């Protein structure tokens, strides 16, 4: 059995989660401070990928990152780097689809954070950056960890947008989910089942990890 799809899926999920983690925290921090109107608009825009069909997200991503899209075209012309049909193209699709999970849970955590703790640290002379990393984040730890794990799990299982933007090339862009589809489509039920079992195992481990973390918090 060729384990390339497993490794590829894991590295895609890890990279997109790292990306989502920082961008999600930043967006949550900025938006939780905005006025209600701007907050409402940005919130809708940033949450859309959660409810849109993944194929729609994939289509939009192709419009931007494809060889004729304005970002994809620019990068290909000037850096000679393709952003579609390569393994790291799936990082963009997984990140786009999983982003709302991180952003929304982090924003919820920031909104219930007791701002007085930040005030106290400011008066004690600590910089705003120090306070964010040492006081605010640890106090919102539970929500942020939950958001990160959920985003990782979602990124790991991404299929629709990924199959559109990265396609399926064995040994190059194949992920677990695209591999399952490919084996089933070609009638190789035994191999499809194996990958289904791998996927089930990973998902169970992730959910178990969330539960253990929650119990430890208590």
């Amino acid at each position, binding site marked *: 059995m060729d384990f390339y799809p497993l490794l590829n899926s894991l590295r895609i999920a890890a990279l997109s989660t790292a990306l989502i983690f920082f961008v999600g925290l930043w967006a949550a921090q900025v938006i939780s401070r905005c006025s209600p109107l701007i907050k409402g608009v940005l919130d809708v825009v940033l949450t859309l990928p959660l409810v849109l069909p993944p194929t729609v997200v994939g289509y939009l991503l192709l419009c931007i990152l494809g060889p004729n899209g304005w970002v994809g075209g620019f990068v290909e012309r000037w850096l000679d780097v393709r952003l579609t049909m390569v393994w790291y193209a799936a990082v963009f699709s997984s990140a786009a689809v999983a982003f709302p999970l991180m952003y929304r849970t982090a924003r919820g955590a920031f909104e219930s954070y*007791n701002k*007085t703790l930040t*005030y106290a*640290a*400011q*008066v*004690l002379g*600590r*910089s705003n950056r120090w306070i964010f990393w040492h006081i605010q984040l*640890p106090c919102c730890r539970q929500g942020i960890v939950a958001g990160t794990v959920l985003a990782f799990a979602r990124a790991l299982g991404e299929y629709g947008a990924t199959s559109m933007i990265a396609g399926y090339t064995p040994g190059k862009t194949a992920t677990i989910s695209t591999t399952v589809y490919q084996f089933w489509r070609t009638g190789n039920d035994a191999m499809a089942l194996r990958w289904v079992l791998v996927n089930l195992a990973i998902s169970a481990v992730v959910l178990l990890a969330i539960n253990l973390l929650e119990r430890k918090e208590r």
Partner: protein
Amino acid sequence: MALTVDIKKRLGKFTLQVSFTGELGEVTGLLGASGSGKTVTLQCIAGLLTPDEGRIELDGRVLFDHRAGIHLPPQQRNVGYLFQQYALFPHYTVEQNIAVATRNREEVEELLRRFHLEPHRKKRPGQLSGGQQQRVALARILAAKPQVLLLDEPFSALDTHLRGEIQGELSRFLAQFSGPCLMVTHSQDEVRRLCHRVCVVHDGVSQPMQDTAEFFARPRTLSAARLLGCPNISPVEHGTDGTWYATAWGIPVEIPPGTSRVAIHPHHVRLVSGPGQGRLCGNGTHIEVGIFSVNVDVATPCGILHVELPRGVWEEKNDTQSIWVELPQDQIIPLMDG
């Protein structure tokens, strides 16, 4: 003049307008009902909120000046702030909480000793009692070496039975602090025990400051008399004969111009045997006998007068009908609006 504050801030339909000074080594009480803008005032001084207009100066250093465009961030103001619920960092131990304010290990040790926190150094705030939490908060404030202390309702987070003990502890602590100290409170008891001077804040507007003793004896405004819990307050009216009358008691009063009401403390009302100047008659309705004194509500033709008499004086009387009382002119407190 160690701390001078003169600021204005609009908050929705409410406008805060306060001006007062805090002297070195003195505790100034900001007294007002909840929602009168006391906490906002402290937050403006600490730099957590920006006033719309005005100026804040500490020890010759300008912290805020609207005209000159000066607005120091809270980190540079050198202010010690005791928050209502103390705002201890829940994920840090006692010693880590103190170490947030100083990098010097020895200072942390010294403060742990001084505030009797050594046995609790490894505990987190959630494992401490209210009094211990307050000691951690005070130690943490001192670690930052503040020039001024701002205390926001320092006893509101404590159970009643702990309050007396901790008030004593805090008053010893404040006696050792050489800078000015500002204490926000809605309790006249705390003012009496801890403050040298009082500034009443009513509906967001500060009133001229008074010495604590003078404030209790002769409050200057209606809101101050209400905060003191003075129950005998009467409007005044200009009579046809040119004198002023206290309408709730039906007696003439001598008052300075600008007075809108008069008040008298219940223990200043005297029991007398018959009619005379400044005297009125009524029936004792609600009678409450205490250990040393008796509280009587006297129903006069114009309204109820609350009277507090020494127990001996009341027991000689033994008749609750047709009680004659005198409101001595020199004990009548003229009050202004506000």
